[in-house]
């Protein structure tokens, strides 16, 4: 594609001047990204508060919750009753996955990074992007409705398994609202996914070949592909469950309530996990990509075996579609089928190891600069390593039968989906904050936030691993009613203290974020001294991003190139910056050949 053609495809549109079109119903990907970020951070706080209530119950079962109890649980004397407890852990899971991590990693950074990093003026379908956000808002309204639902919020667990999630197990409108919210947020995610996939295919700047795209864009793009293909399967499950709840159909109802044989509860599990396993990679692939880039930028070295990382991410994307059965080893599945799923699951560790070794080799002998984004990226590598290794125990049928449905599972998926995604999101926030808001965040506060979070997030989730290994089932209202779990009270109490301290530590981030937004030092164009395209324009970028669509000459991690140091006197070079005597776009191959 030539420059003139891409200018033709993406003409500069004037910036809207009215408040509503500029800040509320905006079609600008940067504004929509910030809207997703605010919504996601708000619901991250809600989900975190719910987590604190769960941890309180496990540390002090049946005791009145301080502060929150007197506000939220007045009718239960401030304590969390068994029914409320069900709604608390259900809403915690659903909110964190669909309404916190998804909007932050995919909604905010997908929207923000994809067009800027591939040199586009906006998404391929700006109006669809607008609709995607406002559909998401509708789903948020449904979530809020669920909290005020008759008989309380949704309470069938985040996996929403029938028959517990049907009217027989969980009557009341709270669960129905939540099932509807999942469907609607799925529609929003699919709209976003279609937009991201199309944008990357069609709107890359001239010279931005697939193998010159930043790893961040690769991660987000593969996530979008998975979203487009597998979120609709969740949509079908949510739709059928919604019909069962509202119109009395019998897709998932079995047993005494069934009419004419009834439906099949296990069918829901199949539909759910056909989506659910890709979903865990949907949540981690963007973080992998972001971390891959940030480790390279702050080690001042090109990413080790860039293509290997790209291929590994592609292989994981494909394999993620064929391993879902490992969530269902205990459903009476044929053992031979279980072994097949086990084999495929364990094969995923090969590309995951490639990525992992690439991250370590990227840092090896680098001039590492421990800015907050780098710290969080390293933290992500660490917690993801723990989460990945504990995943092996659950992927293998022999150990899974013992560990199934224990806190070990909870610890494992929190280390990967919660801790690793959390670290990845924060690395991204600290890294792109100057570009998004034109101001710098405080470095000392960022470092305090990192060490505080890293230490206590590890303690919380390893505490869960240990209690699960000791046999504590997940979701128990009061585990200490069982004699064999009584001795776990001190362990769980210490884990809860870690969780409370972790939550308190986030105040440092909230203060840093808001204070920097208002009074942070002005950020220059390229504060981190890196070469990807978004750092070659003003912070924050103008409405149309690029005055002239850049012509890309090289890959994203051209750091520490001796030729560049000789010619320009610095260790980095922009992706579109001509190095030799040439005009952009005329002899790009010569430049590529020049760096060998």
């Amino acid at each position, binding site marked *: 594609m030539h420059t003139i*053609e891409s200018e*033709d*495809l993406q003409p500069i549109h004037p910036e809207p001047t009215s408040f509503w079109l500029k800040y509320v119903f905006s079609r600008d990907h940067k504004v929509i990204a910030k809207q997703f970020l605010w919504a996601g951070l708000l619901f991250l706080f809600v989900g975190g508060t719910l987590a604190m209530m769960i941890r309180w119950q496990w540390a002090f079962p049946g005791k009145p919750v301080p502060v929150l109890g007197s506000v939220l649980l007045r009718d239960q004397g401030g304590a969390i009753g068994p029914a409320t407890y069900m709604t608390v852990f259900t809403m915690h899971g659903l909110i964190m996955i669909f309404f916190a991590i998804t909007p932050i990693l995919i909604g905010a950074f997908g929207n923000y990074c994809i067009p800027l990093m591939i040199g586009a003026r906006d998404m*391929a*379908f700006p109006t*669809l992007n607008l609709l995607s956000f406002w559909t998401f808002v509708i789903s948020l309204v449904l979530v809020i409705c669920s909290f005020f639902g008759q008989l309380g919020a949704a309470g069938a667990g985040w996996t929403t398994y029938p028959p517990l999630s049907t009217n027989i197990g969980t009557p009341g409108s709270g669960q129905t609202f939540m099932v509807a919210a999942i469907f609607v947020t799925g529609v929003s995610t*699919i709209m976003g*996914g*279609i*937009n991201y*996939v*199309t944008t990357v*295919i*069609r*709107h890359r700047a001239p010279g931005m070949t697939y193998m010159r795209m930043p790893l961040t864009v690769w991660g987000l793009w593969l996530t979008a592909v998975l979203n*487009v*293909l*597998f*979120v*609709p*399967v969740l*949509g*079908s*499950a949510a*739709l*059928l469950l919604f*019909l*069962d709840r509202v*119109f*009395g*159909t*019998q*897709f998932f109802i079995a047993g005494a309530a*069934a*009419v*004419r*044989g*009834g*439906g*099949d509860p296990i*069918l829901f599990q*199949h*539909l759910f996990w*056909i989506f659910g396993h890709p979903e865990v990679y949907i949540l981690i692939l963007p973080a992998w990509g972001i971390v891959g880039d940030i480790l390279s930028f702050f080690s001042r070295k090109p990413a080790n075996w860039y293509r290997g990382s790209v291929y590994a991410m592609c292989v994981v994307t494909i394999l993620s579609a064929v391993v879902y059965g490992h969530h269902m080893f205990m459903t009476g599945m044929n053992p031979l089928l279980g072994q097949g799923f086990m084999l495929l699951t364990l094969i995923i560790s090969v590309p995951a190891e490639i990525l992992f070794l690439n991250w370590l080799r990227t840092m090896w002998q680098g001039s590492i600069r421990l800015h907050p984004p780098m710290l969080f990226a390293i933290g992500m590598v660490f917690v993801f390593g723990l989460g990945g290794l504990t995943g092996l125990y659950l992927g293998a049928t022999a150990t899974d039968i013992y560990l199934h449905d224990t806190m070990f599972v909870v610890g494992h998926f929190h280390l990967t989906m919660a801790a690793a995604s959390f670290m990845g999101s924060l690395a991204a926030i600290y890294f792109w904050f100057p570009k998004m808001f034109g101001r710098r965040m405080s470095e000392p506060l960022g470092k305090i936030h990192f060490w505080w979070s890293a230490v206590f997030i590890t303690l919380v989730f390893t505490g869960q691993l240990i209690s699960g290994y000791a046999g504590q089932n997940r979701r128990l209202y009061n585990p200490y009613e069982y004699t064999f779990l009584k001795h776990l009270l001190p362990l769980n109490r210490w884990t809860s203290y870690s969780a409370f301290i972790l939550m308190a530590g986030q105040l440092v981030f909230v203060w840093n974020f808001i204070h920097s937004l208002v009074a942070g030092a002005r950020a220059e164009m390229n504060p981190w001294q890196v070469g990807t395209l978004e750092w070659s324009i003003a912070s924050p970028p103008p409405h149309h991003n690029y005055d002239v669509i850049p012509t890309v000459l090289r890959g994203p991690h051209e750091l520490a190139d001796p030729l560049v140091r000789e010619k320009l006197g610095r260790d980095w070079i922009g992706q579109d910056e001509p190095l030799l005597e040439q005009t952009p776009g005329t002899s790009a191959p010569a430049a590529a050949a020049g760096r060998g």
Partner: protein
Amino acid sequence: MTAGVASILRYRAPRSRSDATAWLGMILFLGSWTMLFAALFAAYGVLRLRSPQWPPPDVPRLPILLPGANTLAMVASSVALQRALRFARRGRLPAVLPAISAAFVLGWIFLAGQVALWFNLWRAGLRPDGGPFPSVFYGLTVFHGLHVLVGLFGLGWLVTRAAKASFGPTRHVGLRLWCGYWHFVGVIWVLLYFTLFVL
């Protein structure tokens, strides 16, 4: 007509880049929705395979003729819309509006037929809460019917556009996108007809 004129008539203007982008978006959307319907059909298959008798002996039999006529209406509507696209591409602009209108009317005939079908079966005593068979029947056909309704809004918009003569050999991207959607809805219906009513 000489060969030269014929070759001009068969000439297709190259697609603009933004049209190709829009079409790619439509393909992705339809791919996504294929997964949605594939999952629904899979659910239907599982329920059907695990039930001892399908349909159960004590529920009203599904008719074949009315939905069969509906299938014909749906297919005819799809063909008419494809013809409209072809006319627009080849520059036979006066023929575009009648073709789109025909597709629009046939679409409404299909939906009216579906409503009649649901009405008849409801009166015969087939209710959604009567077990897996009516669940599948109402769930899948009504969900499909909603997609037809969305398509009819699109076709209505196309009719107003065609009435203003806004389509031409290089200006038909909206027509092309709705054409893709309409064929998709039609194919889903044909699959539903054969698996639900005939088999």
